[in-house]
């Protein structure tokens, strides 16, 4: 009788273990250089996007014909563009647009991909149809499909998000599906089924939490890819419509005066590069952290 714990003791033990587990995760996160430097870069960029507009007195739309194409320095840190607009404030507002699109696409594709991946791995008949559709969609190079969809929908911010969601959902669904296929075969799922648990209960309560790690890693990479493709779309004139500051639009403006105003290409370019680099670092680190197999392989 002495060996049996009371419920209270058991709960204390459980929360203790949870705390330990969490501490371990935090520790491993801090010791993972990739994940750490990636998240530092991202935090700095996000903070800049939020607070920087309060440090500059210029708006991204303010035209000033007298100050066209001013080199960086003085009151314009990044110089001015060919309409005399303050480049710094345009780059910072562009960060908001890019981060917003990347984040929205990562979230929406994760949710849709999760639903499609879970159900298609669990129901064989559905699988054939859904996976053929995703094969077909993945036969298009991402950027071309995005351009083609944007050509039909017309250049607007919402449409960029829709196009990127169509482009990236299939690969998320595939990732989730292959993770589910592994989890599905484990004994505990079989035991649950034998106990008479309903399919949707097993799918959402027991399988879904186990495929979150690969999903989160992939969402990070989709975040980065969305930023790249949005920039390319806007650069090609098929993304965010013109006066709005998006990094792709800034590069488009910059290209027309590339021989006179290097800053108009350099600063938005570096912004894209740093953001994508930060996200890739973060994703790589996260993958090492969350995938035990990968970890072992490293040692």
């Amino acid at each position: 009788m002495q060996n049996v714990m009371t419920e209270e003791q058991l709960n204390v033990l459980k929360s203790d273990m949870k705390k330990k587990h969490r501490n371990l995760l935090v520790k491993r996160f801090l010791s993972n250089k990739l994940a750490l430097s990636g998240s530092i870069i991202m935090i700095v960029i996000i903070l800049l996007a939020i607070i920087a507009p309060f440090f500059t007195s210029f708006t991204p739309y303010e035209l000033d014909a007298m100050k066209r194409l001013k080199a960086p320095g003085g009151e314009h840190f990044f110089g001015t563009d060919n309409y005399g607009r303050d480049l710094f404030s345009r780059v910072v507002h562009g960060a908001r647009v890019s981060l917003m699109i990347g984040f929205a696409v990562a979230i929406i594709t994760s949710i849709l991909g999760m639903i499609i991946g879970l159900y298609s791995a669990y129901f064989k008949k559905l699988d054939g149809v859904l996976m053929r559709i995703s094969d077909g969609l993945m036969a298009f190079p991402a950027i071309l499909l995005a351009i083609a969809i944007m050509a039909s929908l017309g250049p607007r911010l919402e449409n960029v998000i829709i196009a990127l969601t169509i482009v990236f959902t299939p690969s998320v669904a595939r990732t989730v599906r292959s993770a589910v296929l592994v989890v599905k075969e484990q004994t505990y799922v079989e035991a649950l089924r034998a106990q008479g648990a309903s399919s949707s209960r097993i799918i959402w309560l027991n399988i879904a939490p186990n495929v979150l790690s690969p999903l989160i890693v992939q969402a990070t990479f989709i975040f980065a890819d969305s930023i790249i493709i949005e920039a390319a779309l806007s650069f090609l004139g098929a993304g965010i419509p013109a006066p709005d500051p998006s990094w792709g639009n800034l590069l488009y403006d910059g290209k027309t005066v590339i021989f006179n105003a290097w800053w108009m290409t350099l600063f938005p370019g570096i912004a894209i590069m740093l953001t994508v680099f930060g996200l890739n670092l973060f994703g790589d680190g996260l993958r090492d952290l969350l995938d035990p197999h990968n970890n072992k392989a490293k040692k």
Partner: protein
Amino acid sequence: MKGYILKRLLSLIPVLLVVAVVVFLLMHITPGDPAAVILGPEASPEEVAELREELGLNKPPIEQFISWFGNVLQGDFGTSIFMKQPVSQAFFEHLGPTLSLAIMAQVLAIVVAIPLGVLAAKFRGSILDQTFMGISLLGISVPSFLLGLFLILLIGVELKWLPVAGYKPIDAGLVNHIKYLILPAIALGSMQAALIARMTRSSMLDVLNANYIKTARSKGVKETIIVIKHTLRNAFIPILTIIGQTFGTLVAGAAVVETVFNIPGIGQLIINSVERRDFAVIQGSVMLIAVSYVLINLVIDLLYGVIDPRVRLGRK
């Protein structure tokens, strides 16, 4: 082998069908009347009605799809409204520069990336390895069109070493042809090189730990022969896969890089068509590229069978 080829060919049918449906739908997801969108705001209602009739937009969607798909199967992708020529003709006229660029970028990437990946795996953990891998992560983070713009700034504007815009066909002399393509090919190939280098490294690492490599080493086989003959050959399948899988991305990337360097290829054709709302051209080009992507992957799959007999025999 014959059965394997047949099976792979049959598995293409549903994929190609989905590709066709997606391409067909592209024109129909336009908000509003596609005919009115194509003609622009100045068109009279009679003109719009005429174009609707011409495009077959008055028929039920299923019927439209069947007649469109029937034409596509015969190689008829419709007619460009603006260029007044068949889409396939326009496509193949613009294909040369794009292919030239994509192939040059691919060759450049392979030549640079595989030796680097092999070296990084051989001297894993060394400064060399870490530097290469750091650079490759950076390479993945710089989209090709952006690298193109940076190259124009640095080499074209500051150093003035190479031309930064335009295209010379091979007829104008091979040297000239290559000279105009060097910067675009570097811009396009670097991300590819980064991917291939990373894949080569990890694939080499997997094989280098295998028992038969230990055996070869204990037999006293020379280290260079172990690395090149025993390891690289066995590590080649994942490398080949990534080269094949990314070729479509490379062609698509070429389309964007072309715009940066003003190269008159598929990219310019598509972008100009987006501006003019020339749907037939967009549909036809996207369809042709997706189909060739599927076919390239088929060839790669079949090549596995040649390189590695386990693929064609084992999985039954």
